[in-house]
């Protein structure tokens, strides 16, 4: 197991996938981080040297990811809610925010839209 930014990953995990595991870190950012540290696209996390793993952890700790990124989204929703906007209300009711119909097919909104949004 390799510990990267406090999370343990299996050695056979691709570095790209391991980086994308973090919230608010997508394929673009992951590729850029890897290029910065000369990690080839198909590298597995087990093959990285301890020095590179530490450098990656340092890199990640300076970025807005995971709970920081979630807080930003939650703050934005909370602001809408506090202002009493329509979008804020729809978030609070777990309903679609952008004018979609609610007769059928609104499960994604019901799952995700809430003031304390998780994902």
């Amino acid at each position: 197991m390799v510990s990267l930014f406090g999370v343990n990953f299996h050695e056979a995990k691709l570095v790209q996938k391991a980086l994308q595991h973090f919230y608010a870190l997508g394929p673009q950012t992951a590729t850029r981080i890897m290029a910065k540290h000369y990690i080839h696209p198909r590298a597995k996390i087990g093959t990285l040297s301890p020095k590179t793993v530490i450098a990656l952890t340092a890199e990640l700790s300076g970025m807005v990811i995971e709970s920081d990124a979630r807080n930003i989204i939650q703050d934005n929703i909370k602001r809408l809610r506090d202002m009493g906007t329509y979008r804020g209300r729809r978030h609070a009711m777990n309903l679609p925010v952008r004018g979609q119909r609610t007769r059928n097919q609104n499960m994604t909104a019901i799952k995700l839209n809430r003031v304390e949004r998780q994902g």
Partner: protein
Amino acid sequence: MSATNCLRCLGRPSVAGASRGVVVPVFAPRTAPFSTTAIQNALPAKGKSGEHQDRSVRVYRAGRKMTFKKKHTGDRGKPPAPGERKAFRKKIVLSNDNALPVPWVTEMEASSLSNENKVGTIVSLPPAVQDQLRATEAFQPTQTWGLFRKPSTLIRKETVELVGKMEKATANKQTARVVLTGEKISGKSTMLIQAQSYAYLNNWIVIHFPDAQELTNGSTEYAPVPNTENPTLYMQQNYCLKLLQSIKKANEKILAKLLTVSNHSELPQNIPVNQTLLSLINAAKEAEGAWSVFQALWSELNAHGANRPPILLSMDNLPHIMKISEYRSASFDKIHSHDLSLVKLFTEALSGNTRFPSGGAVIAATNRNNGPRIPSMELALKQRLAEQRASQEETVPVRDPYFKGYDDRVEKVLKSVEVMEVNRIGKREARSLMEYWAASGLLRTTVDEQTVSEKWTLGGGGVLGEMERAALLTMKI
């Protein structure tokens, strides 16, 4: 009066029926007695739910979370261990004990491949050369070595031509720079094997890159070479180590005789003058210092006045090193393949900038199956071919002025190479090949003019791989 058993149960009488003197069937086994299904595939026995796993699927339907149970698919057995699948895919089988030995096939000798009288004969590879070719990964799993008793090759017209070029170049201490091109499965990689066999039998040093794609598709570790700027070069240490080991295994005997002419104190292990080149290669034990060891070895092999043997530098799947690689620099720019140091070493030799002290050859083979389309390379090869023919009717093709995808660096590398087309074999060669197949017990027809013509035509007019497909692989089990 209603029956004690319902109609559906008549086939299997109840216990009540048994008490009335009806023959009771033997206790039903877990699987039906007539079934040919393996027990492993049969449905699991009901009742015991101790091993029951949760295979349910949760979906949202009409606003409610619903759970469906998935059908139990049975035990799938142990998955293959990591690397096992790849090892199976890359497995090279070189002999088949069930095939008949062919009496007239002789073993390849140092001079057989350059002998024009031998065109159209089949020669087998000596065991020592087989080991060397295995070490450089020259054999490919798609080739049909595994069908015959001994690995043997057909000496083609092109083989003699290529080997003749190698011979002529070394006689003048020059380097033959050849690109093999031609149709799909027309035998370009096999020509590389033949060129290598010639080199091994004549005590050359062989450095072979089995698949150029491994260098550029972003699958090996890379790092910038220190103190290189404009352009920054990148070394691939892991690949380098693998290459060094294959060089060592394939050329062990010769390397043990050659001695170093300069001191290499920059290596992980200090190598003074008059050490064998084998000990120089042995200095690379880890990927860490592999590139510097490779550089030292290359400079030693190219040392002038040290009486070095000729060098064969060969590469399969050339188009892969003529494109932008999958690697990226720290500033997220794409790295051109020619900025990878190992590729650069090859392209420098191919373009003629590196001169081997005792001559030698640089041979590259293009590939059609999974090769990328490189317009510049295709154009350059067409230009060289037209120049070689030097006929009045044919003009040398020029760049399309409305197309942007050309690459100057590629054209520069291929500016002065010789291009050899490996195309179709003639009917005479086809006949001797088919006689060999028949004598091996793999082609079960009489080989006469008609069958040769038939298979030759079915094989796209003498494309060797297609002929194999038409005649041999139809019965592959």
